[in-house]
């Protein structure tokens, strides 16, 4: 029998279709190898390479985006990787976020006098992992992406060796992240055990035809549950959020921005793809779990955010509650009777994109305020920012209002989208929970604004705004306002995100 097995034939690889990954890989190698073999580059060059690489990858993604209009969604590398609008939209989000984060990292490292290529190299590698996650059409490939992303992030979180908090953050993240990876892998094994495949398309097909191995439905459900737990850790959904505040607070601020944007995009997009593509026939089983997670995440995240005094910790909890909003979109997409199944998925991904820009801008300002040493700033450090730097304070105000979901900012468009998808599918409970969470969280953003505008400054030390950070924050603010005014083109772009490639 064994002798009759066909010889192993490697799958055909469409090199151009994975060119964004290749571009990032090339950039990472250039930084790591080139950086190691050459003397210190002039100030800002490492960041420039990282930024340019992300830009090239983003541009290639844009070209692929156009190709899909002709070719339709397909899978690559033997069905392991999906090439569809969903993957490309998330990839573009990751590339754009990477550019912004690189910019604020540059100034952060320069302030510490530690400009070095390793951080950027890890950024690029983590982004590769993230892109693999959002486009993986196979649970094993997804796991590879997850580990690539996570391992880089563990190191990044601990990358400020002078601060004990940073090391603590890295270790905590590593241990809990290791747990979650184990959960995830166990889930993959159980799903494989009951269905006989790790390919998302095949899983969906088998389950749709009810060809599961008899009596293994419990195995499958446990597998799905473990996958969900693994994802919930990565996305930091309540009650799996314990690591997030500590890590967000301890990690260097630009890394925190990275975690809150790219880390979230990758894990959440992968979660959506796996559950919508592979397990649509078990929607009724996992929808309640998503709903409970969403409600808990929304409410616990915002309530705990309000009682914090450390700005990074506040933003960490607020980021948790934002993840709840994104889940609302997934829950909406899981209703079979929903009038328009696209809206939930599109709304979630749009939310991810808009939130990423907002949160990077916010952490960019926080990074500037915390200054040399990158001590985690308390609310008092924000006091009187409007008198020290009125424009910076105005920018942060716009970003905070956007997080609160005030109209004419992109944050409102994002919230409107998910609430609309929830209402369309009849999930009124979730819609109301989400809005309640928004109101509670608004108090938090108001507290920061009060500190900035209505309190006298505690220090007169000048606050320098370096060029790169200024560009990144300025872009984030303008993007937030522009998308709040004319969101039409983005909604158009996000319209067909739910047409997944699975075969």
């Amino acid at each position, binding site marked *: 029998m064994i002798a009759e097995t066909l010889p192993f034939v490697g799958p055909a690889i469409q090199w151009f279709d994975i060119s964004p990954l290749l571009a990032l890989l090339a950039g990472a190698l250039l930084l790591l190898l080139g950086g190691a073999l050459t003397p210190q580059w002039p100030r800002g060059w490492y960041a420039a390479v990282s930024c340019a690489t992300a830009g090239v990858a983003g541009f290639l993604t844009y070209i692929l985006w156009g190709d899909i209009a002709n070719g339709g969604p397909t899978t690559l590398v033997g069905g392991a990787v999906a090439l569809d609008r969903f993957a490309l939209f998330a990839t573009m989000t990751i590339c754009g976020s990477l550019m912004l984060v690189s910019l604020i990292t540059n100034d952060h490292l320069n302030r510490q006098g530690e400009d070095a290529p390793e951080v950027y190299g890890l950024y690029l590698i983590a982004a590769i992992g993230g892109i693999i996650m959002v486009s993986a059409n196979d649970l094993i490939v997804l796991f590879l992406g997850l580990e690539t992303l996570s391992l880089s992030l563990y190191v990044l979180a601990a990358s400020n060796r002078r601060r004990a908090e940073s090391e603590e953050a890295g270790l905590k993240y590593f241990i809990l992240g290791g747990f979650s990876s184990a959960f995830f892998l166990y889930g993959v094994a159980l799903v494989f055990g009951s269905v006989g495949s790790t390919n998302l398309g095949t899983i969906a097909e088998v389950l749709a035809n009810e060809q599961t191995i008899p009596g293994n439905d419990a195995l499958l459900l446990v597998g799905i549950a473990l996958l969900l737990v693994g994802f919930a850790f990565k996305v930091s959904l309540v009650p799996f959020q314990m690591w997030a505040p500590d890590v967000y607070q301890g990690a260097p601020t630009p890394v925190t921005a990275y975690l809150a944007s790219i880390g979230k995009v990758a894990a959440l997009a992968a979660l959506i793809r796996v559950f919508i593509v592979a397990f649509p026939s078990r929607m009724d089983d996992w929808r309640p779990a998503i709903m409970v997670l969403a409600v808990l995440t929304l409410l616990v995240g915002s309530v705990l955010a309000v009682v914090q005094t450390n700005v990074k910790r506040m933003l960490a909890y607020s980021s948790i509650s934002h993840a709840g909003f994104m889940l609302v979109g997934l829950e909406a997409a899981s209703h079979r009777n929903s009038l328009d199944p696209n809206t939930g998925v599109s709304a979630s991904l749009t939310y991810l994109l808009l939130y990423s820009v907002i949160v990077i801008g916010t952490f960019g300002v926080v990074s500037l305020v915390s200054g040399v040493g990158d001590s985690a700033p308390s609310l008092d450090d924000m006091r009187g920012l409007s008198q020290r730097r009125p424009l910076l304070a105005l920018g942060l105000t716009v970003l905070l209002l956007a997080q609160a979901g005030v*109209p004419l900012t992109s944050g409102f468009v994002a919230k409107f989208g998910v609430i*609309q998808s929830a209402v369309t599918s009849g999930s009124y409970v979730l819609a109301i929970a989400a809005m309640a969470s928004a109101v509670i969280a608004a108090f938090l953003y108001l507290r920061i604004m009060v500190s900035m505008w209505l309190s006298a400054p505690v220090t007169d030390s000048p606050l320098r705004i370096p060029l790169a950070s200024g560009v990144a924050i300025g872009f984030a603010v303008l993007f937030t306002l522009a998308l709040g005014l004319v*969101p039409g083109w983005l909604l158009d772009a996000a319209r067909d995100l739910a047409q997944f490639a699975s075969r």
Partner: protein
Amino acid sequence: MIAFPILTMLVVLPALGAIVVSLIGRFHLEWVKLAALITSVTTGAMSVWMLVKFPSGAAGFEFVSKHSWISQWGISWHLGVDGISLFLVVLTGVLFPIVIVGVKVLHDEKPYLAWLLLLEAGLMGSFLSLDLFLFFVFFEIVLVPMYFLIGGWGYDRRVYAATKFFLYTMAGSAFMLVGIIATAVLARDDVGSLTFNVIEIAEKANFSIATGRWLFVAFALGFAIKIPLFPLHTWLPDAHTEAPTAGSIILAAVLLKMGTYGLLRFGIYLFPEASVWARPVIFTLAVIGILYGAIVAAMQTDLKRLVAYSSVAHMGFIVLGIFALTRQSMSGGVIQMVNHGVSTGALFLLVGMIYERRHTRQIDELRGIQHVAPIFAGFFMVVMLSSIGLPGLNGFVGEFLILIGSFQTARWWVVVATSGVVLAALYLLWAYQRVFHGEPDEANQSFRDVTLREGALLSAFVAVIVFTGVYPKPILDRVDPSVKVLLEHVEQNTTYRQPHSVGEASG
């Protein structure tokens, strides 16, 4: 020729003014003031011009301007004005230049003026929007400048008051947002496509009874906080008391009206069945508000807080009139919105002047002002009497129409509410007596009488008060047709019939 888009300009011009003001350097304060003044005066002039051009007797929406905005969601920039919103728009347009000229600011004039103009844009937009989404955008946007005005230029507990104001209102609008989206989504089948157009939804959508009631509750909750209806009023005394004078004036005169206006335009128009169904509860809350507001106002020691609580009582009357669903009571409600805006706005202006001179608003520290400042006392008297509802002044017209109209459909509530009129006389006259009568002590001896500028501003208020009181016909002629159409809409869609004994809403 394309008609001049006056309504769009009414919204855009103040917003542009805010941007211009914030762009001018802070060392050119004169330019800042000039820019703010020009914008607000031009906006005011345009609103008056619109009032002149508004055809008397027209019932539909005039000057409509409609452009697609976010076509994916069926959202458009859709503005229009009818008899219900007309005078609120004019009030907003005229009040802002008065506030900008008449109220002194002690510090940071530039951001103050920028926020004020942005607030005007938001308020104009709220009253003019005929698109639910657009309305919500403006309804929420108003919070931001008001928050900063209270928080930045208010009195001692300003941060607390501003935060409370923001969170209360935002909580209300959160439910409203879910309601708005649900309305549009559920109306999609009846209308044919997803749209937030108020008129289309109201005319075509056919909600089931239970759905309509739920949606109405979602809307009404948001508006009830804004009005504020008892027991959701607790943000108001704090916000009013701590706000700077300009903030209090605008809060009382215009901001609160967003709630009552919203109930008329969106509550009753979109969900007539639910509005009829909810009347007993709303009447009861309104009447409790009238009595409670009056009694609490009588107990206040702070003059500004007293006026704030009187607002709770007056807004109760307006809500009572609107939901009594007769032509007289609803026209009365609309007119009373404007009247309350004028008289309470003027009262806050006067209280602000007292504070400027004496640096206190405590009633027991003021006395005998009538002796040293007779003209000031005279203005205060007229404004106060208008607030009480003395015949011949504007307050009477609205209150009388409300009471007589509501008597047909909400008899026992009206009987109780009428005692609120008496109580209003009690707390206001008593306050007047304590502040203005008697012999002035040393601190009050130097109370300066009105300056020319103050006198001119107050005269404008008094002119409106007297004119409306003596000759309300021009206003009624413009309000009544729209109210009539709204009532017909209610009767078409429900079993409710307004009592036939009611004749024409008289002029």
